């Protein structure tokens, strides 16, 4: 089992102002799976994603990753877990505008204290995978939205993490570009040793999912088999 979430609960505010973002959410995700999380705005998708990726500490419940109890680790170990096990693709990319594309992709390896030389070599390999080898020396500001998204993906896989977390990966892309990218992730990035979790509103990319998990008002409302599974 890649991820096992057990009764995860997160609330914000105290006393009368307390609102539950996620209530007792339990689910599992498997290796080799591309799991979608969908639901209306404010239903707790990002909060849940943060709790399973070591970004936000739950108020109660537990997360186990590959059998390890995530939130019982020390803060430093949790940071190391994010650094080594997770690849993030943020909704608005968060690329450094003044570094080159290759340097941006190299960042996780730099944080892992690999040498710049090694990191840049790995980065250019990943840029090749996402089809941007010729843009390595440009700053990301010179790239189109779809290209920036691919840079963000290259950065998320450069350190070969087992779990990839995408929050709204297609929100700032046009439909065709979004489809292309997710299709690419499905065919090139997803392996039997990986687990990819995607939060999305975008029904045009549902066809690439293995399973779709629906959230409503902080709770998990149900699962649907993704299109890809039936195929």
């Amino acid at each position, binding site marked *: 089992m890649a991820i096992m979430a057990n009764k995860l609960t997160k609330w914000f505010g105290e006393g009368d102002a307390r609102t539950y973002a996620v209530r007792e959410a339990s689910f599992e995700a498997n290796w080799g799976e591309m799991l979608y999380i969908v639901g209306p705005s404010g239903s707790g998708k990002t909060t849940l994603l*943060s709790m399973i990726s070591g970004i936000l500490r739950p108020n109660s419940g537990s997360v186990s990753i590959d059998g390890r109890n995530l939130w019982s680790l020390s803060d430093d170990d949790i940071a190391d877990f994010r*650094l080594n096990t997770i690849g993030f693709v*943020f909704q608005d990319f968060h690329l*450094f505008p003044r570094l080159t594309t290759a340097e941006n992709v190299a960042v996780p390896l*730099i944080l892992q*204290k690999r040498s710049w030389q090694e990191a840049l070599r790995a980065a250019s390999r990943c840029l090749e995978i996402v089809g941007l080898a010729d843009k390595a020396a440009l700053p990301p500001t010179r790239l189109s939205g779809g290209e920036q998204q691919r840079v963000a993906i290259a950065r998320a896989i450069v350190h070969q993490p087992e779990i990839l977390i995408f929050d709204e990966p297609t929100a700032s892309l046009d439909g065709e570009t979004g489809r292309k990218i997710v299709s690419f992730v499905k065919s090139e990035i997803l392996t039997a040793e990986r687990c990819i979790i995607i939060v999305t509103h975008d029904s045009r990319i549902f066809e690439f999912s293995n399973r779709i998990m629906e959230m409503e008002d902080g709770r998990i409302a149900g699962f649907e088999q993704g299109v890809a599974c039936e195929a």
Partner: protein
Amino acid sequence: MKQIFTLAYKLLVSDRGKYTALLVGTTFSVFLIVQMTSAFAGILTKASATVINVGAKIWVMDSAATNTVFGSIPMPDYVLDAVRSINGVKYAEPLYVGSALLKLHDGTYQSATVIGLDDTTLLGRPELLEGNIDDIFAENGFIAVKDEEFPKLENPKIGTEFELNDNRGVIVGIAKVPTGALYGTPTLYTTYYRAIQYIPSMRFTISYILVAPKADSDIPYIKREVARLGYLAMTSQEFQSGISDYLKYKTGIGTNTLLMTVISFLVGLSITGQTFYTFIIENLEHFGALKAMGAKGRELVYLIIFQAGFTALVGYGLGIGLATVLISAAKLRLPEYASRVTFTNLGLAFLLVLIIASASGYAGVRRVLKIEPFDIFRG
């Protein structure tokens, strides 16, 4: 850590505009601080020029006149005898310091400082560039000091004649001294008796008594004994710091220098602090993204400290370079330009630039430590 520092460097330097503003802030701050304090140090050194140039270990003087070399109150001859008989005094000789009006060859008048050296020992004599020291005993012999004021004597050569208070004078030697004088008058050396003969003086004539102790350990005893005579004995160092303190605390020069230094510091601090803080704020979401990706809080702190420290060091180097270039250029044009870059000045500037960097860095660090990766993740 080297990898993180390289990342810090790239992030800092690639932001040309901010980086330039940061460097301008620190560079100018350091430049102004070094410039101000060096000018002040130069004035202090020059004010003590005679004390440094005469080079005696102990100076005995009237205790009411210790602020400048020229404000001496003459002492009666018996003081000299009394000092000579103090235990631990190897020898003691009188020194005359006064000023005279010269009439130069072309008829112009020029005031000069005249130092009269003891006739038998010539204690405190300068090093000669030209001429023979024994010629100082020749009729009307004077030695001119080749400092910044030398041209005011019409660049005399050996044999050049002039009138001194209506007496004839002739240059018999050219001397060099370690430190030029502050007050803009050329200096002549002659013998003690010729000095008091040519320059009108009161009943007492000894400006200072120069004392050589048998050993340094005798100095405290000599000072006590001189005090019992009603006079003051100071080591050369004490005399110099007395003169410096007078300029620092009694004339306003010190206060103004201090004020300007503080202002330079504050200007540098506000420009640099402001810019650095803006730099951090603009990059806050990126720092947050780094944190989300697994950078630890302390790694981000190191990253910011490196950026602040790097800026400080480069700005420090540029500031000192700029000050040096300017001081050198000014010295080329104005020989009497008083400025001396001391290690204390450099240390002070370094300290202040470190404070600027720490203050700027601290504000940035606080903000960066407060970022919640979750807020970045939520967008």
